[in-house]
């Protein structure tokens, strides 16, 4: 069977992009966190686990996060937050996703999340809520297990309706508090 790869290579070559269905994850640093070493470690670990990671840098507003998630059609958003602003930021992110009719993205959080806030966060639909010291393999397995399975099929779930276009929200947010313009 040594020559079989030749013909399957030829026929598979054109389709091989499609065969490589990858989990796409947006790693987001919302709020005013100053450093992102942890987020970068997670981003690299997700890449090493075979996922496509879109990392947009620090100081992301909820509008920027949701806009990126929509344009990149990600399967999961992983928010890494250390500054304690989670109770202000997470509801805005979930509301923007809802307003844009997005209900098939897994939203995961990690960082400094006080135990007493976790029930409220989970009630919003933000899952995982990994504290510092959580193993990377735990996070990776969680993402794999909880991404909506229809997203991993070629068909993808149908788009649902949007109450209001994202653009209206994003445009009214100050572009000035957009963060990192570069390294």
């Amino acid at each position, binding site marked *: 069977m040594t020559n079989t790869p030749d013909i399957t290579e030829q026929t598979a070559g054109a389709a091989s992009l499609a065969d*490589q269905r990858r989990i796409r994850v947006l790693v987001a640093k919302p709020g005013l966190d100053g450093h992102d070493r942890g987020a970068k470690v997670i*981003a690299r670990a997700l890449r090493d686990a075979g996922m496509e*990671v879109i990392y947009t840098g620090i100081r992301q507003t909820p*509008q920027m996060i949701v806009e990126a998630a929509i344009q990149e059609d990600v399967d999961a958003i992983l928010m890494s937050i250390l500054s304690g602003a989670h109770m202000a930021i997470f509801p805005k992110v979930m509301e923007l996703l809802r307003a844009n009719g997005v209900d098939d993205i897994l939203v995961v959080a990690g960082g400094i999340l006080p135990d007493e806030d976790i029930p409220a966060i989970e009630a919003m639909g933000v899952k995982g809520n990994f504290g510092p010291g959580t193993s990377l393999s735990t996070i990776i397995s969680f993402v794999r297990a909880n991404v909506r399975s229809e997203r991993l099929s070629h068909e993808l779930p149908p788009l649902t309706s949007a109450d209001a276009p994202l653009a209206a929200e994003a*445009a009214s947010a100050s572009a000035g508090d957009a963060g990192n313009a*570069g390294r």
Partner: protein
Amino acid sequence: MPTTSSTTPTAPTTQAPQTALPTQPDIVARLLAGDRRALARMVTLIENGAPDVRRMLAQLHTHGGRAHIVGFTGSPGAGKSTLVMQLARELRRREQRIAIIAVDPSSPFTGGAILGDRIRMQELAGDPNVFIRSMASRGSLGGLAVATRDAVRALDAAGFDTVIIETVGAGQAEVEIVRAAQTVVVVTVPGMGDDIQAIKAGILEIADIFVVNKADRPGADQTAAELRMLLSLDEHRQERAWRTPILKTNATKGEGVAALADQLAAHLAALRESGQLASRSGRQAQSEMLALLHQALMERIAATIAPAEWDRLVADIVERRADPYSVADALTRRLGLAPASPD
């Protein structure tokens, strides 16, 4: 086609809320109406080779042809992402709607990728007239070229005025990817003397505009001079009406970007006037058709001939019991194609 009424970011294209749950066939209609979730979803379907995607692409093709497709390539570290971001801002000032496809390589070991071009594009965030999508090579540069071309088709149909394809590197793979472009911009930086040589001949041949970025660094003039010298050696280029410009920019400061935007517009106009736009599109259409026919043929072969039989035929040829011509003749007959005429 969506109306491009916005001159400021505060007036996005609005659409009435959809009441019914759309099924997949609605994606093309919604994309054409300006729904960017549908557009993003269409690109995902293209990347993943969804079963229905060809039918959708066929529809999208008939709605396209308006966008200026620009490819940006050049060595890593040349500042392409920052330059593309600044160019997008300049084009926004000229009231254009811009889409950017940022291509990054996947890890050959794990198949994953970090797609980090968006970090450089923060200043475009919140602008409904800019759409940025990151694509990974997924281990198949040929497949990526096809996916990029099809994604461009979707973005063109969605009504963007300029679609920018931004790649990493300046080698043969990048040549394939920017083949979908009408204007190719190659970006270098001073002090990478050896890396002028690293810009492979393939890229040099197809470049329409050269940019020396980080032009505040020493050696910028020398780099430009070296490029000019290289270009002067290319006889074909001398014969063309288009004088290949070598521009100097400082992307972080936004310097030289207006001139770049001017040259992009000038190149598109020159292509139209010379009839080259049509002939380039014709060549792209032909190569696309041939690739699709080739793929169809390969699939027919795989469906018709079992691997074990294929191996047997190959062994027959190697051991001189048969020859490749007779074997190929017999196979083409089996496939229902006209056999080659005998010598």
